[in-house]
């Protein structure tokens, strides 16, 4: 048994890493090796920059999703929050440009505010249902998702809304600030704000406490209902911001934006070690988790995996991540 004894420290180190940060470093390592072998274009600076730019949208939504997961729930309606924002803000801008044809930026701001308002409503309804009426997050956000998607389609009749000011797409879709694409700048600012929010503010700490044990939080003088409301509203607002950036990118208001993002964002969070039972999760890991998902999609594109097969693999990856999450949770609870 000399083999087993010599490899023990290595196993121990792997185990420690797994318990501390979860499955992400392993997945990331495997993906990097695998796709580098499959395509020589994969591990190039240009491609990785490309991945970074593409991952902005998922990074943002995943951070919102993370807050709700930490609070002990989850949000299936992030995709529709994006769609509703897209449709409402586009309609708003088109209308506002008609009213104030000389103040383009005012029109853009008004439209964006309308989009944020619509998403705020979605988040508030989610929060209200989960916190005050104690509907399970699964049913609440699934229901809201259907309602909001229906309204978005109803508002547009299923046709993309066009005619927005060019300045909007030029700046938020394709513009650069200090040589960096605007969506990336927005994402970096959001990441910093989110990190401060979750680790330095009372509200962030309360979200961790509520997700860890809501009854214990209640007995520690935390307003659990308000905390849950906040989590869902912040999540919807970040999704809404993503919706605006995507709208700028596609230059029209579309009711079918964000179709798969709920699943992808949950996968990104779980892979990044956010517990589905609530109370555990870190912003920086989630950013990396979202980056990983986009990286895998990019790698599969380069390796010419069909988009249908990609769906299969993404779903399988999510389930695998949850299995590892279960193992990790058991190790944590038993003192591993």
């Amino acid at each position, binding site marked *: 048994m000399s083999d087993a004894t010599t490899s023990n420290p290595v196993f121990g180190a792997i185990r420690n890493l797994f318990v501390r940060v979860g499955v992400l470093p392993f997945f990331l390592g495997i993906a990097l090796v695998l796709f580098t072998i499959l395509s020589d274009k994969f591990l190039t600076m240009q491609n990785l920059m490309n991945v970074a730019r593409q991952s902005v949208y998922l990074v943002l939504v995943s951070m919102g999703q993370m807050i709700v997961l930490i609070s002990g729930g989850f949000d299936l309606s992030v995709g529709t929050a994006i769609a509703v924002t897209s449709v409402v803000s586009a309609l708003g801008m088109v209308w506002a440009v008609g009213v104030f044809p000389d103040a383009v930026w005012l029109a853009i701001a008004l439209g964006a505010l309308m989009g944020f308002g619509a998403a705020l409503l979605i988040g508030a309804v989610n929060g209200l249902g989960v916190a005050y009426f104690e509907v399970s997050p699964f049913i609440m956000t699934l229901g809201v998702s259907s309602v909001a998607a229906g309204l978005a389609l109803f508002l547009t009749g299923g046709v993309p809304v066009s005619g927005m000011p060019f300045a909007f797409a030029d700046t938020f879709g394709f513009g650069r600030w200090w040589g960096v694409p605007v969506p990336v700048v927005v994402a970096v600012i959001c990441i910093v704000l989110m990190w401060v929010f979750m680790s*330095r503010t009372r509200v962030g*700490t309360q979200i961790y406490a509520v997700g860890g*044990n809501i009854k*214990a939080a*209640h*007995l520690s003088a*935390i307003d659990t209902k308000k905390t849950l409301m906040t989590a869902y509203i912040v999540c919807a607002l970040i999704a809404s911001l993503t919706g605006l950036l995507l709208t700028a990118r596609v230059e029209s208001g579309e009711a079918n934006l964000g179709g798969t993002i709920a699943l992808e964002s949950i996968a990104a969070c779980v892979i990044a070690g956010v517990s589905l*039972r609530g*109370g555990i999760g870190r912003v920086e890991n989630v950013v990396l988790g979202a980056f990983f998902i986009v990286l895998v999609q990019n790698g599969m594109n380069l390796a010419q995996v069909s988009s249908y097969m990609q769906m299969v693999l993404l779903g399988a990856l999510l389930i695998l991540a949850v299995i590892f999450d279960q193992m990790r949770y058991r190790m944590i*609870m038993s003192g591993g």
Partner: protein
Amino acid sequence: MTSPLIKTTGLSKQYPGVLALDAVDFDLVPGEVHVLFGENGAGKSTLISMLAGANTPSSGTIEVEGEAVRFGSVADAQGKGIYTVFQEFSLIPTLTVAQNIFLGWEPTKGPFIDHRAMRRRAAEMFEELDFPIDPSAVTATLSRAQQQMVEITKAFHGDMKVLILDEPTASLTDREVDHLFDFIETLKAKGVGIVYISHRMQEFSRIADRITVLRDGALIGTVAMAETDDAALVEMMTGRAISEIYPRIERQDGGVVLDVAEVRTAGTLPCSFEVRAGEVLGVAGLVGSGKSRLFRSVMGLNPRLAGTVTLGDRDISQAHTREIIQAGVYYLSPDRKSEGLDLAKSSNANLGVNPMMARLEEKLRGFVNWRAIGDKTESIADRVELSTGYRTKLVSQLSGGNQQKVLFGKAFGQDIDVYIFDEPTVGVDMGTRAALYLLIKELAEAGKAVVMISSDLPEVLNLSHRMLVFAHGKITAELSGDEMNEDTVLKYFFDESGATA
């Protein structure tokens, strides 16, 4: 001495890193009640789980009527006539009583279950045992006491030689306890041997023949009931004398801080009492007497149906729980796992929540000052004597005693005038208890008001200056001084008429 029904020799159970049971010799003769006594974690449950066939020994032998046996399952043990009623209920709440009793051996008519026969036979069994339960009732609708009876009935079939009861009276009312004891007497007369686990020493004199005391998995001794007394048993159980456990608390009367007037919640009658600063108010009563429910309603955790609660000169009758805590009343939950602690986080993180909510030294409103909170949790952990190594560990990995220390520590994270401790020492070893009692002493002597709700009567009697006795959802007595003795309290526990304070 008649030949034993069960005899174990050198019975041990080794778990990874823990010797749960260490070479225990134990025997049971026909027609006796043999009590197993010891703290939580002493090895009582491990011992009976092996006798019941639910667990296999690491070493040592079990003999049944002189014949060595190895039980692979509970069914094996039942085949030898050994039946066990575990503390954790094995009933399925959504099935009817009769379905539960016959679960796994349903009477059939051809390929189909014969429900009528099942109900009839269940009714016959209840009649034989004299339990007033409807066999077709859904189990979830029964009281805990009735479920206990169903559990016993379920165990009671076939040829019973040995009945093992694990804390059967923990949730029973006194009348139900009488009933159970009558039933035990009947079995004794038939020559059945009974292994009986209980923490309630007042029961031992009524039914026990011999008592075996375990501590930390080891056998301390087996004594005949007639030749021992409570003090000797506690000393055997804990390894220390009673006077070392309970400190003397000086009373400083600082006037009324919490006035509860005619407060009523679901399941209680209106209750009135005062809580005074610098004093420990004990609250005793059986499970289900309403003592915990009433205080939970004071805290806003249970519905408040009537009455007023005044804290200082502020009316908090309808205040939110968090407002009550912020106003200076702390409630320590009796269930540290489900509503006390965040198990997947470290002790420090758990302790930090309360100072965080109290806005400890916030430099910018809404932003947490983690450095100040780190210092605070450090000093709290020192105060509750939590070892340094446990502070960064996850709470789920700590023993019950250390978890309880963390829970106590949460109480020191904000400014509090009235501490309500609900079952403060449940499932905690004697060493930790002594430490927690000293904390209670410190608080009371510093002029805080302490309320101690407890089902552990010696604890209440030894620590309180004044006590309330609850029975049937109302206060049946308010006692102080020499009136606070076990006989008087027990009388009010079982008080039906409600001669009142």
